[in-house]
Every structure is written in C-alpha cells, then in structure tokens.
C-alpha cells in the first residue's frame, strides 16, 4: 500500500514541479510549488518523520506561499504605478 | 462496529472522488467550487468518522471532533473568499449562466457614484 502511495504522490509531485517551472503565470507557479510541499508532507508521514511532516505542512505549504504572495503583490503594485 | 466504520469510510471516499470528478467536469469556476466544496466537506467528514469508528481502540475522538468542526467552519469560508475574488477579477461565467445580480448591482453602484 505504501509503495503505491509513494508512487502516485511522487508522480504528482514531479508533474507539479514541471508545471511550476513551465508555467508563464507567476501565481500559478507559486500555487504549484505549494502543492509540491503539501504532497511532500504526506510523504514524510510515510517515511515515519511526523515532526518534519508538520514543519513542512506549516512552513512549506503555508508561510512560504504567503511570503511569495506578498512579494508578488509588491511587484504587481509597482507595475500599476509605472 | 468496525465493519460499519469501514463502510462509512468507503462512502466518504466515494464522495471525495465525486467531488474531484465534479471539479474536473463542471464548466466554470463557480460550479467547480460548488462541487469541490460540498462533496469534499461531507466526504472528509464521513471519512474521518468512519476511521474513528473502524479503529475503536484509539483515543483520538476529541481530535477528530475538532478536525470535523474545523473543516465545517473553514471550508465554506475559504470557498466564499475565493468565489468573491473570482467574481471581482471578472472570471467569465459559463455560457449556460442565466443571470448575474451581483454584476448588475455593482454596475449600478458605480453609475450612482459617477
């Protein structure tokens, strides 16, 4: 069972990583990067590292996305001015 | 008891699946959200309840209850925030859409201000 979970989640992660690089839209790339972290924290549970899973869920998918969004917001705002 | 728990879990997972399928099939973002929010909410509630029932020996009922209440409260909230944003940035509605009161009212308001 765990092997199937790892295979499926891993395939999704690789697809999301490619999506994050290939995407033209910055917001979509950030969302895809968030999805990678989200799935990585599931894998950490399979790997018996719950502390890491919790940290990754909290930081990787939550705060990193938020920090990226604030940065994008600054850049977009300047866009509107110029 | 355990068998009932497992069956409830199975029903929940089918709802999760249907929600994801609806996400894929629906024509525009609001309809997708409808399918996504409702089906995944009930699906996850059933899944969690079933898991707690199927493993009666675990002392996790309190945490599962908190998780369910939390999902019921936040899932519609985030859907609402997203729907509002999507409407604001003007994502086109599906061709089948009959009416849009919000857009009309917003137009009226802008007209009134000018």
């Amino acid at each position, binding site marked *: *069972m765990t092997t*199937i*979970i790892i295979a*499926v*989640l891993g395939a*999704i992660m690789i697809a*999301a990583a490619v*999506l994050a690089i290939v995407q033209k*839209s910055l*917001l979509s790339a950030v*969302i*895809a990067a968030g*999805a990678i972290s*989200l*799935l990585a924290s*599931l894998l950490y*549970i399979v790997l018996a590292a*719950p502390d890491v*899973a*919790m940290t990754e*869920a909290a930081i990787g*998918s939550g*705060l990193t*996305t938020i920090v990226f*969004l*604030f940065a994008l917001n600054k850049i977009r705002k300047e866009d509107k001015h110029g | 008891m355990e*068998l009932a728990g*497992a069956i409830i*879990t*199975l029903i*929940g*997972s*089918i709802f*999760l*699946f249907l*929600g*994801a399928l609806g*996400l*894929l099939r629906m024509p525009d*973002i609001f309809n997708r959200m409808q399918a*996504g929010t409702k089906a*995944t*909410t009930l*699906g*996850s509630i059933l*899944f969690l309840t079933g*898991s707690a029932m*199927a493993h009666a020996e675990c*002392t*996790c009922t309190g945490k599962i209850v908190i*998780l369910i209440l939390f*999902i019921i409260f936040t*899932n519609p909230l*985030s859907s609402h*925030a*997203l729907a509002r*944003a*999507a409407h604001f*940035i003007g*994502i086109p509605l599906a061709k089948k859409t009959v009416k849009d009161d919000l857009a009309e009212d917003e137009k009226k308001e802008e007209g009134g201000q000018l």
Partner: protein
Amino acid sequence: MVNIIYQIAGAIALAAILLAFIRMIKGPTAADRVVALDAMTIISISLIIFLAATLQRVIYIDIALVYGLISFVGIVAIARYLERGI
C-alpha cells in the same frame, strides 16, 4: 474484510487527489488552480488520517490539524491576493 474495505477507501481517496491535480494542470486561470489546491488539501487531510490508521500511530492526527489550519490561511491569502486586498 474490514481491512480490505478500508484500503479500498484509501485508494479511492488517492485517485481523487489525482483527479483534482488534473484540474490544476488544466487551469485555465490561476483561480481554478486554487480551487483544485483547496480540494487537494481537504482530500489530503483524509489521507493523513488514513495513514495514521494504517501505520497505527494516533499522534499523526496532530499533523492533520496543523495541515487544515495552515492550508486555510494559505487559500485565504491567495484569494485576497487575487482581489488585490493585501
């Protein structure tokens, strides 16, 4: 018997994540991708509980709590970014 039904339920949840991810690839707009991400997080919470039950550790449920909480904040952040509110 119980175990087999339970495992089938887990497999269906896994397939649901896959379907939601296909919506994320297809897009077409960023908002659609966020909706897909939202659905993926909720399904993942179920999957975490499934893993906790399969691996027989009660303490993994805490992760599901943190996961749900933080993903809610993340989705709200993206929504507020889209409507130019932050």
